[in-house]
């Protein structure tokens, strides 16, 4: 019987396989950031262990960094955490892109940008959104700090076996519907636990027609369905994205790599443990109304009645979510008023996302009382956007244009949503208090975020006067 893409990549990385034990997998790339690494380095020091492969390891500063006045870190606790990363990377010989460095940015934005993320690789990072990087056709897993220490010391991880889930995305995306809308619809279909134990492979016409950046957005939120990872078979779109990047193979290595990468697809006779199919041709912009990413609906829908959920746990979760969100069942989603708009994060902080948001905003002015933050995913994305004049579109519309980092996605730095305030956010989690204490989050696409900023209510670009598409 044939194998799926995920099984091929897994099999190629087994260092040791013994009956009754988890496979020991080799890790091709280990990415680090300031939040989940300090205790791992401390563990190495206590045991007197070196980092086995500094040449397969890279670090950046993203979660905890200010996005304005970036030279000045006023919070002493944040400052200590960043200084600890710098000292650890110096001590163990690890490449680090610090604030102020042109390659600095969100870990999952800089990896692809540098060409370090390639098909067929195993990649880990102490961050659940490592799933993003599966978009190139590898296996990318989020891990905890104990596992970070394990990979630093051994360049391997013992991994429990996984199941395979095909998410078939048939049809072509309608105008105004983006990869973010698709993945919100997928997570809503699967639920937050529906992907548990599975590696998802996104397949079908809509995936083949999607840009590399759109694929990254989709794989990013695989974890929101509880999945171990998300992946997509590499194709010409993948190869074209990689060619010429700093760490992409060159010359004869490129040819050897492409020959290997071209074998990385699910065999015709392979069988998935589970499959779902969604016709994306009927999708409309999708937003969340609740406090987990599975609680979403099309923008034209109403906030649901908790009684409409058959499962008692889901019903109770919906009741709790609506109480926290301050929403009444039956409210039209388009009538929900917003205070804050955030465009950015490892989900939607790449150049195409900023272009989409700018296209909606161009020539317009954000509504009175709205605060809008646009935070590029990396310093290079910021520079590219400035070269294209996107920063001026944002500032002319009344938005704030910032430096690169995770920012308001998780509010570890000063960029937070105030208590009781409501945000439309292009990030990935609408958990209680995620963007700040008491903050209420609606997850949206960059196009919906920009249209919402213009009207002050959840809005799709097609709803705007004199506009027909995003």
């Amino acid at each position: 019987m044939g194998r799926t893409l995920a099984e091929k990549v897994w099999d190629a990385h087994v260092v040791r396989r013994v009956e009754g034990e988890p496979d020991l997998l080799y890790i091709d790339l280990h990415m680090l950031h300031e939040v989940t690494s300090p205790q791992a380095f401390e563990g190495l020091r206590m045991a007197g262990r070196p980092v086995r492969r500094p040449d397969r390891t890279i670090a950046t500063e993203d979660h905890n960094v200010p996005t304005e006045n970036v030279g000045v870190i006023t919070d002493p606790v944040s400052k200590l955490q960043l200084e600890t990363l710098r000292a650890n990377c110096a001590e163990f010989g690890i490449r680090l892109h610090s604030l102020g460095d042109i390659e600095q940015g969100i870990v999952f934005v800089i990896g692809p940008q540098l060409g370090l993320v390639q098909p067929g690789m195993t990649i880990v990072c102490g961050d659940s959104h490592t799933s993003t990087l599966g978009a190139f056709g590898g296996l990318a897993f989020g891990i905890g700090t104990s596992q970070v220490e394990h990979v630093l010391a051994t360049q391997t991880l013992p991994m429990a076996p996984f199941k395979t889930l095909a998410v078939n995305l048939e049809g072509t995306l309608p105008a105004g519907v983006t990869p973010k809308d698709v993945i919100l619809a997928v997570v809503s279909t699967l639920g937050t636990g529906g992907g548990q134990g599975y590696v998802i492979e996104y397949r079908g016409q809509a995936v083949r027609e999607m840009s590399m950046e759109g694929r990254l957005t989709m794989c990013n939120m695989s974890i929101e369905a509880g999945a171990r990872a998300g992946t997509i078979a590499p194709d010409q779109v993948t190869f074209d994205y990689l060619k010429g990047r700093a760490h992409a193979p060159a010359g004869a290595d490129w040819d050897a790599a492409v020959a290997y990468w071209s074998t990385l697809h699910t065999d015709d006779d392979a069988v998935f443990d589970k499959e779902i199919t969604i016709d994306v041709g009927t999708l409309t912009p999708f937003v969340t109304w609740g406090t987990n990413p599975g609680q979403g609906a099309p923008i034209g829908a109403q906030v649901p009645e908790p009684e409409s959920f058959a499962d008692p746990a889901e019903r109770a979760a919906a009741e709790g979510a609506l109480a926290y969100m301050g929403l009444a069942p039956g409210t039209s989603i388009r009538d929900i008023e917003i205070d804050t708009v955030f465009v950015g994060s490892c989900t939607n902080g790449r150049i195409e996302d900023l272009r989409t948001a700018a296209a909606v905003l161009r020539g317009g002015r954000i509504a009175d009382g709205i605060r809008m933050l646009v935070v590029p995913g990396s310093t290079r994305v910021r520079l590219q956007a400035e070269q294209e004049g996107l920063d001026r579109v944002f500032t002319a519309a009344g938005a704030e244009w910032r430096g690169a980092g995770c920012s308001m996605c998780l509010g570890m730095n000063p960029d937070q949503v105030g208590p009781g305030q409501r945000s439309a956010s292009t990030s990935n989690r609408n958990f209680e208090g995620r963007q700040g204490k008491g903050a209420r989050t609606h997850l949206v696409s960059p196009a919906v975020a920009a249209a919402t900023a213009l009207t002050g209510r959840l809005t799709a670009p097609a709803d705007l006067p004199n506009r027909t598409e995003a």
Partner: protein
Amino acid sequence: MDPFTTHTGTALPLRRSNVDTDQIIPAEFLKRITRTGFEDALFHRWRAQPDFVLNDPRFAGASVLVAGTEFGTGSSREHAVWALRDYGFKVVLSSRFGDIFRGNSLKNGLLTVVLDEAVIEQLWKLIDADPATEITVDLERREVRAGGIAVGFELDEGIRQRLLEGADDITLTLRHADEIAEYERTLPAFKPNTLAVTA
């Protein structure tokens, strides 16, 4: 890691589903660089509400958390496990856990046990009727006992052995350093090197 064989203690009923790791420990506490001392951060936002179950004196000293389904979803922050452990929890029972949280817990000697939702409901009722009810979690026999209830549970045998011995994963893996080195000799030249000088 201390060995885990059997634990008996009183329980805290957390009747909520989808408790993500942002609720277990909010991001502001992730700036710390220590591995201990997170007890003050556990359920920090909910704890501010006087009627939150953690503030209920009837459950003071509980060491077994009996939680609703999908506990520990979301962020990979191991701080969530450290906060539960530092507060005094030894075991979490739920019908479903977030994968990364579960992996983290078992590496820190916090035993996460999957039980049927019906069993969780039964345990909640027992605890409600008598908060002094003790729950025993027996890793040697893979069994949870409380009141008249005795149910078995599944756990990967390798992980169970490691917990029983309190063994350290890294030490175990480093015993296979030769096999790792052998694998490394087969790596193709096109795999990226982060330290390579690029144009």
